[in-house]
């Protein structure tokens, strides 16, 4: 499954642990970089702050983005990502608890590639993560960034 990284933007450590566990159980070996808030995510993507030394020519294969985050929230991150030429084509999947119509509408309006609702049941959750991995890491041809 390639070597590209997955950027997981998620502030809840339990969700992080469960997501990583799901990746692991389906043998998705790509590096998963976890950003716990919006600022960290943007730093990673734009090579600023703690990630100032990171190469900008190494974008993640996909960003898994929670919506409710401390500081800059998921929609704000998405807006900034889409505004910047370096990241505007980056695949971004919203992975959230919310099924509110407004969140769906805003997410897609701002250019989300996909919107996945995190199921409570772990079996379903793991299945969703597996399909995500297969789709974005294997089937999907990444945009030429």
């Amino acid at each position, binding site marked *: 499954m390639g070597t590209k990284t997955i950027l997981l933007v998620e502030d809840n450590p*339990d969700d992080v642990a469960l997501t990583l566990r799901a990746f692991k159980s389906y043998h998705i070996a790509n590096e998963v970089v976890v950003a716990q808030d919006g600022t960290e995510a943007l730093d990673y993507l734009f090579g600023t702050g703690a990630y100032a030394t990171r190469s900008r020519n190494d974008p993640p294969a996909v960003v898994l983005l929670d919506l409710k985050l401390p500081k800059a929230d998921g929609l704000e991150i998405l807006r900034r990502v889409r505004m910047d030429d370096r990241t505007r084509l980056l695949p971004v999947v919203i992975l959230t*608890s919310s099924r509110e119509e407004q969140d769906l509408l805003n997410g897609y309006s701002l250019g989300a590639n996909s919107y996945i609702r995190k199921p409570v049941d772990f079996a379903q959750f793991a299945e969703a993560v597996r399909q995500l991995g297969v789709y974005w890491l294997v089937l999907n041809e990444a945009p030429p960034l």
Partner: protein
Amino acid sequence: MSGVPVRAVDGVSGFHLLFASNPLPMWIYDLETLQFLEVNDAAAAQYGYARDEFLGLTILDIRPAEDVPRVRDHVAAGRPRLQASGMWRHRRKDGAVIDVDIVSHTLDFGGRAASLVVVRDITLQKRAEREIAQLLTREQAARAAVEEARERLAFLAEASRELASSLDHKATLATVARLAVPTLADWCAVDVVDEHGAIVRVATAHTDPAKVALAEELVRRYPPDWNAPHGVPKVLRTGKPELYPTIPEAMLAEGARDAEHLRLLRTLGMQSAMVLPLVAREGIAGTLTFVSAESGRHYMEADLELGQELAFRCALAVGRAQLYRDVQALNAELERRVAERTTQLGAANKELEAFSYSVAHDLRAPLRTINGFSQALLEDYQGRLDDTGQGFLFRIRRATQQMERLIDDLLSLSRLSRAELRRRPVDLTTIAERVVRSLRQGKPDRPVAVTIAPGLTADGDDRLLEAVFENLLGNAWKFTRDQPLPQIEVGVIKQAGGPVVFVRDNGAGFDMAYSHKLFAPFQRLHTAAEFEGTGIGLAIVQRIVNRHGGRAWAEGEVGKGATVYFTLQ
């Protein structure tokens, strides 16, 4: 004065024929002594004196005393031989005065200068003339009265029209004052009692603006005193109209506070006045004052009546203006309240949205943790947990799933309350068919006989109505699970109040004793072991139906099935 000697006309019989038996009263009197020298029978009969009595009288004796000087003058004046001396009044012996027309003729009667008088009694004619004159006067008076009444009516009609044209309290009162001048008064003033109990002049009218200013100044310098003996304060106290046919100096002096006040009052030149109460719903609202000055008219009872009529109409108009003002104030208050409630509602809605959003995001996360780590325990520590321990973990996971469903249902119920209702014609038959198709796909092995009435339509929000059928048909589908020949029917009953749509099944049914709990959120009439569910379905149905202005109700019997009815208006 020379008389003409009387020549007998064929002797005695001639005299009788021409004088004594003449049907007109005749006499001869001495021009000097005014003594009657001869009278005929008709005169004696007419005047009630016998011939002998007559001959003892002078012509002055048959006159009303007041006419005597005129008679003397007349006799003394030089006169032609024959003259028509015109109308006179004579007095008969019984004192009755009669009207007569006299023709006289001077002559020599036995050597004396005398006058022959022929009397024509015109009493009846005179009386008739007098009566005619009286009738004419009365007729003119009646005409004048009619004309005056007509003018008053016209004035009142005009006043009513003017008063009706304004809903503004102050404008109405100003109109009244303006209308009264000069038809009814030289001055007209309107005073009202304000909310502090003070007497306030709200309108003054006079044809001359300078005089209006004068009257206004007077009121400003000497505001009315509630205890004043006359005028506005008295009428406000008693509620009875006051009529002052004349305004004597003494009255002015009595009402004046000081010499300057009296001087100003005098400059108004008031001749007559009337003050009328404006009787409103709550009592005496004010007064209407009419004053006559330079016109010199004096008010009488009839004027008072007209004034009262005007005051009555004015009070009606003021009452109406007040009602209008009240209604406007009420409207403004209502609008203010609506705006306030709208703001409150908006705030409450925003709060609810924030709450829902929080529920959607934050309540699920811990469930996912509980569920996920229970699963992790099962997977990673399988060998170290016995069946009971594993069973516990299964229960934990099942509970989190149930809780997730509850959260989802709660959110959809709250979403329903907030969602905008978009009404348009909806084909209910098609929606029901689509829902049933989806149910069949979920459980293809269930042999449910479904009948859906064709051509069911309604005016409503198609997305919401689809949710109604999803819930009702979903329930019917679920509760007919144990029925060997499950049947579901969707139909309509035409009623006067509009169509009633129903979904009927022959499933588990319910006890009507608990029908009131059926539509309450999270109320269930079956255990989770019997039938799964959160108890939100019918609450959602009811909320949607209510938002369409309709209602929902149910009938059922345990073991026989259930029918849910709903209307949409």
